């Protein structure tokens, strides 16, 4: 026990030291490399990362060489791809899936002069590993507001992917926003155990519609639930990761768009001008990482209410998790007026009071 706590503090010390000395010399040309878990045209997660990568290439022109590899499986294969990228002369490598976390840190240890950026993870074991994520829960609060105002059956459906903090955070944020405008709203969660599986997602949407759900949110990437919703008039949903504009004006009434371009442009720019340091970025609506797609097919007052939430979050006057909030079991979480600390959100493993059902263990 003693030995382990000693090691932890040594690691923390090392991290602090590295943060202090993380600046680099200016560079004339940067080779920026991107590793994707899916195909670049998946219509969701990877497509948006690739759009950000393309924006980097367009912004810096000759000063940046952008290469990417798609469809990289998580685990041992990711480690090999990351190593080969570092060997090929990449200066900065963006690993864009949670499952690349251990591989990124392992490879970073071997290439201290290559900078590694890992999306949505929490491990920064070496001075050359940074992490970045986006506050998608802010977007959930906006669409949660629309959901609460639009539901007639008071049953909101949520196609969830995996029971991890990121997803639980989104369910809670959406529910709290919906309950604020409609105290009778209930949340019906289906766990799909996938990020992308059109057939499973469509089944989940179908099952919900049969149970009387009339507003469906999804934390999965395909448009299959949209296609399912389009079959029944009056059912609405929201685009995930991309705008899913093909389903405008309904069933898609708005969307949460991932926009990684500002972050990628900023980080590669820092490599070029020598101001790059290790970091842990978590930007949201205000920073442009989370965008709300055009609100369509709903009454004007609903649209105005949702935009007010969006603008309040952007201005910093509204936090989706503002107390008093209790946990599902009735125990107190946030006191009156208190906002949720980032640490609580990043490790969130409980529903807030009012959501029925259990988080699978």
């Amino acid at each position: 026990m003693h030995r382990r706590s000693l090691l932890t503090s040594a690691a923390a010390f090392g991290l602090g030291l590295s943060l202090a000395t993380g600046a680099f010399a200016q560079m004339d040309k940067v080779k920026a490399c991107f590793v994707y878990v899916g195909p670049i045209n998946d219509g969701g997660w990877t497509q948006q990362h690739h759009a950000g990568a393309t924006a980097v290439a367009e912004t810096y022109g000759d000063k940046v060489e952008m290469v990417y590899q798609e469809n990289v499986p998580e685990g041992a294969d990711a480690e090999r791809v990351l190593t080969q990228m570092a060997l090929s002369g990449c200066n900065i490598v963006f690993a864009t899936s949670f499952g690349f976390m251990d591989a990124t840190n392992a490879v970073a240890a071997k290439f201290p002069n290559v900078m590694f950026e890992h999306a949505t993870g929490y491990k920064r074991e070496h001075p050359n590993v940074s992490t970045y994520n986006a506050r998608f829960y802010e977007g959930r609060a906006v669409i949660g507001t629309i959901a609460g105002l639009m539901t007639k059956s008071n049953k909101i459906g949520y196609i969830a992917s995996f029971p991890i903090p990121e997803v639980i955070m989104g369910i809670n944020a959406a529910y709290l926003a919906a309950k604020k405008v409609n105290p009778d709203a209930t949340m019906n969660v289906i766990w799909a155990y996938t990020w992308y599986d059109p057939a499973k997602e469509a089944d989940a949407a179908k099952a919900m519609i049969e149970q009387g759900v009339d507003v469906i949110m999804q934390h999965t990437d395909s448009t299959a639930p949209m296609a399912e919703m389009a079959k029944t008039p009056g059912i609405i949903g929201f685009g995930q990761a991309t705008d899913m504009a093909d389903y405008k004006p309904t069933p898609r009434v708005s969307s949460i768009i991932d926009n990684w371009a500002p972050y990628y442009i900023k980080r590669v720019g820092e490599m070029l001008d020598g101001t790059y340091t290790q970091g842990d970025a978590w930007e949201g609506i205000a920073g442009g990482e989370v965008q709300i797609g055009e609100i369509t097919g709903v009454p004007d007052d609903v649209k105005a209410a949702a935009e007010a939430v969006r603008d309040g979050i952007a201005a910093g006057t509204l936090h989706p998790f503002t107390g008093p909030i209790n946990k599902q079991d009735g125990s107190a979480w946030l006191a009156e007026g208190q906002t949720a600390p980032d640490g609580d959100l990043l490790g969130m493993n409980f529903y807030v009071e009012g959501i029925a059902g259990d988080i699978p263990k």
Partner: protein
Amino acid sequence: MFTLEKRPNPSRFWTVATPVLAVVLTMIAGGIMFAMLGKDPVAAIRTIFWDPLFDPQFASYSRPQLLVKAGPLILIAIGLSLGFRAGIWNIGAEGQYIMGAIFGAAVGLAFYPDEHWFILPLMVLAGAFGGWLWAMIPAILRTRFRTNEILVSLLLVYVAQSILSSMALGALRNPEGGGFPGSRNLSQYPAAANLELVAGTGMHWGVVAAFMAVIAAYVLLQRHILGFHIRLAGQAPRAARFAGVNPDRLVLLCFGVSGALAGLAGLFEVAGPAGQISIDFASGYGFTAIIVAFLGRLNPIGILLAGLLMALTYIGGELAQFMLGLPSAAIQAFQGMLLFFLLAVDLLTNYRIRWAFGRAAG
């Protein structure tokens, strides 16, 4: 026109020559495809087949990786080939691979953070047991209830994947992982880690086990009465029965061996290259091994070479993707071509092509 004439015996020359011919044909057809995608076909083929082995920038890393990637493929394919020779179809090696990893990792994690010499050996036993156990389900269902072992073993893969998800999220989840799915990293736990035996060679215990399996299978098939029974059951089931081969016993045995080897592959992978039980741990080795088994003609030496070739196309394919900007679908199509040509030219082994101008068919 030409006609096909069945050879009395499979041609020895073509048995050896067809894989080479298939690789050459794949290079030509693949080159045409790469050219149509606007890439230099020669550079693409060189990047796939040459650079991982000899390019000064990559070879020192990718050559050992060849063994890391080929190890589990060979280990699983050797097990499958025994059953395939006897006409016993275990299509569910992927599931047995997953269960081996779960059993083995669970044993290792149970001892965390103690250091004992016996932890890794115990995990190896547990891994083999897990794979064996999962393979026994289709085997026993077939011998007792005459179910179709192809369907049962395949469908059990999906059950194993669900168990894997549940383990990554529940029982085996890293308690210090901040609620995220995935177990502790076994490769960072010295007593349970299956690390490189000699640094920079890629040789870990799984690769050693794969080589041992190749030798054992070779000896078994050439020298042992059991190997004779397996071959006999595949080629002449009725004759086998007269020779006293018990078909049910053979099913249990072939499933048991292939399940245990797949389980071992899973254990070595989870304790080494992959490092942890995660939702995405299953990477298709169990299915790819079926291709490797046939690519290698169900022959142990052939499987060894086929596994290495398959690994080369994976690693070279990855290089080609980001060095030349080839889409990953093009690499998959290229691998598909290899299998297609291999099966197509296989015809030459068993048939002779006769040109039959102006001759009336008999």
